[in-house]
């Protein structure tokens, strides 16, 4: 196992709703693709070729630029045995690494606990969005969920600055002090953690400046907030956000393309921003989705399938294809879907072990073969 590098961080982007792998990394010279996708196929002359077999979606030019620099690993055919095509159940499986039974502890919650066993830093994990993603939930692990960094914290609705300051002061006092009652004591600690996390996070935007101009869409703003926290050196190691909806049962070419346009631009801007602040060697980005989509289109979109695509992006990533691109031939399909050929927990294990220096087995619930997409 490699040693823990305390400056390394992981940025996770969940493509909610199930991204269509076939229109992301397009098998543009495979006749099957155009046979099965008469309405939702991307014409050969529009794709961005990678090699003689595969091409990126036309909206992924910024990702292609990173690919050309060798910073993009694409894991094809990723999934898990007996794929479940329900969004929620499949997301749960990716969140908890438990495909057999319904589990509650998230894999990133375990990562955060291993990175900071004493819970010294209340913002080791930060989610940019509302509500805790199940990946990050684990008993006793503090995680901040930030809707918008500029307004994050307690009492955001109090418009008058002086009153808000008084409220925060009072809150600090009311949650301080020892009380001889376990529940009140626990509430006090949690309240102080929340206040402290907000106090620390609030400093991030103030000290941040950059020449990178992020687009005005949710994923760009979330990654901008992540860059603000990362460049402020607050000790945050795990960043999480999601974007969607990729549930493109209809009007897929337009909707899916638009979403990838946003994600590609956001990731590219984020990497440039980190580069500008000397942080680009310290972060990798993982992009995942709960499952793939059907090979055959439904007329204007695609229904739920299996076998997906994940991305790992960063300076410290060995770019290239990992996993086999599943065959589209009818005889190789799994009930009309792409056949997965590598377990998502292999990708998680690689990141936990080779990037974060943690023992991966308890984090992903088992031993899984690792990839070599992390540079050593």
């Amino acid at each position, binding site marked *: 196992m490699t040693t823990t590098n305390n400056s390394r961080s992981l940025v996770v982007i969940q493509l909610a709703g199930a991204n269509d792998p076939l229109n992301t990394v397009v098998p543009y010279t495979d006749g099957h693709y155009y046979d099965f996708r008469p309405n939702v196929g991307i014409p050969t002359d529009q794709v961005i070729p990678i090699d003689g077999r595969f091409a990126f979606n036309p909206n992924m030019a910024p990702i292609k630029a990173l690919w050309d620099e060798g910073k993009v690993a694409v894991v094809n055919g990723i999934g898990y045995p007996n794929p*479940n*095509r*329900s*969004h*929620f*159940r499949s997301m*749960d499986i990716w969140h908890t690494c438990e495909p057999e039974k*319904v*589990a*509650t502890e998230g894999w990133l919650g375990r990562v955060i606990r291993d990175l900071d066993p004493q819970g010294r830093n*209340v913002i080791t994990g930060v*989610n940019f969005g*509302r*509500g*805790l993603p*199940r990946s990050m939930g684990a*008993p006793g692990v*503090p*995680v*901040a*969920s930030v809707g918008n960094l500029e307004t994050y*914290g*307690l*009492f*955001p*609705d*109090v418009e008058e600055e002086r*009153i808000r300051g*008084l*409220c925060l*002061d*009072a*809150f600090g*006092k*009311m*949650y301080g*002090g020892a*009380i001889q009652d*376990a*529940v*009140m004591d*626990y*509430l*006090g600690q*949690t*309240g102080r*953690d*929340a206040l402290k*996390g*907000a106090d620390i996070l609030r400093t991030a935007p103030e000290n941040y400046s950059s020449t990178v101009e992020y687009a005005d869409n949710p994923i760009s703003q979330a990654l901008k907030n992540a860059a603000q926290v990362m460049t402020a050196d607050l000790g945050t190691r795990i960043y999480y956000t999601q974007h969607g909806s990729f*549930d493109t*049962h*209809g009007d897929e070419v337009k909707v899916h393309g638009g979403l990838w346009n946003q994600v590609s631009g956001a990731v590219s801007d984020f990497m440039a921003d980190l580069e500008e602040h000397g942080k680009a060697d310290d972060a990798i980005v993982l992009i995942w989705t709960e499952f793939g989509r059907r090979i055959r289109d439904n007329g204007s979109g695609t*229904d*739920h399938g299996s076998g997906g695509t994940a991305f790992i992006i960063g300076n410290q990533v060995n770019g290239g294809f990992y996993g086999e691109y599943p065959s589209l031939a009818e005889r190789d399909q799994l009930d009309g879907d792409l056949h997965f050929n590598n377990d998502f927990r292999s990708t998680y294990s690689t990141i936990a072990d080779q990037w974060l220096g943690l023992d991966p087995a308890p984090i992903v619930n088992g031993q899984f073969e690792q990839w070599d997409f992390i540079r050593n």
Partner: protein
Amino acid sequence: MSNADIALMAHLMRRAGFGASRDELEQRVARGYENVVEDLVNPGTPNAMPDDVIRRYHVDMAEMRELNSAGAYWIYRMVTTDNPLEEKMALFWHSLFATGYSKLNQARALMNQIDTFRRHSMGSFHTMLVELSRDPAMIIWLDNNDNHKDDINENYGRELLELFSMGIGNYTEDDVKECARAFTGWTLGNAEYMATRASRDSIWPYSRIAWHFQYRDHDHDDGEKTFLGHTGNFNGEDIINIIVQQEATARFVSTRLFQFFAADEVDAAGEAVIEQMMATYFASNYEIRSVLRTLFNSDYFKSEAARFARVKGPVELVVGAVRLAGTYQEPTFGADQLARYTLYMGQGIFQPPSVEGWHEGSEWIDSGALVERVNFVGKELGDPSNPGVKALIDRMSAGVERPLSAEEQVDACADLLGPMQLSSATRTSLSEFAGEQGEADLRAGTRTEADDQRIANLLRLLTATREYQLA
């Protein structure tokens, strides 16, 4: 009408309902505690927001295929009903028989399940278990559609004993198998097709499916079974007959009700109340209404020890704040957000983390959830233009003859929000805040919007306290 009577009634209404305004508390005190308990356990017409009104303004709540639409529809009902205990009991059963959207992709089926829970919420536990076993959402959730005559699936049979009625340690693995055998053939119409749909489709564009229970005699194992020492050619109802007679079942149901309504932790005095509830359970033929009556009328429940001994769950917190603020009494733009807020706080309606339901008590609280709780309730009660907040300040203003001191403001607010019991440290911090903020002059003629806003700010801060997190 004594302060003690008001405080006791406030306690009952926090537990058997979602809290109450001072006007409501006074009316109920006038009616008498035991009469109010009877009113609560014998609900009349709910007078909740009518379906046709909801549907006119929220098209998405007509079919309720979507999670937040269905969640908001239920919250509307909780916010506007005259029968708060009925909704609280539906929430109790949802927590106990926790069924999740994740496997169903069908919120309508879950809302139908809630309707069943409400219909039988305080009736016979026997009937409840039979209805639960026939519920399509439950059948899919715990795979009873895969429980066949010659190929049993134990999932439902096991959880019926472990999580829904007796608790682990009161039966053997053989009992689980025999129980599962008895429930073979309990499935839903067109089960094979519906199960495929549930596992493959999202809510759109399919899934307009009306699930219903079906008993398939040809798929039922009618052979002899031995269950908990009884032998016979048992079917599912026979198994439930045996289950409800068990002392373990009486203890399980009574304890869960105690923890939901009386206190998160069971101490020795609480144990004695549970024994009384168990006796009532048998004496009343397993009637939940009677068991609740025993609990609410017990000295323990009415005692100081039971006050503020529970951490409010997210749904009761949100509904309580909205009811007090007087908002969402009519169809309101953004109502679907209410269901999202409970999710942000850790209790997504129809999204229990697993079949075991939510981990309650202190586990409701983590730093992210606490921020959401404080901010949501603060927004509802910190706005003096909300009707309930205005009414509260009006009440506080009645008859005042001089500007209220900081301490008087704090005490008046704490009184009308509960009455709440504040620690002296909390009261001091709040008084300092009120002092810094400035005088509130609520005398008729001199009362201004600024005075109202100052009181509302104080209400906001009171709902941010540790004390407010407890019910």
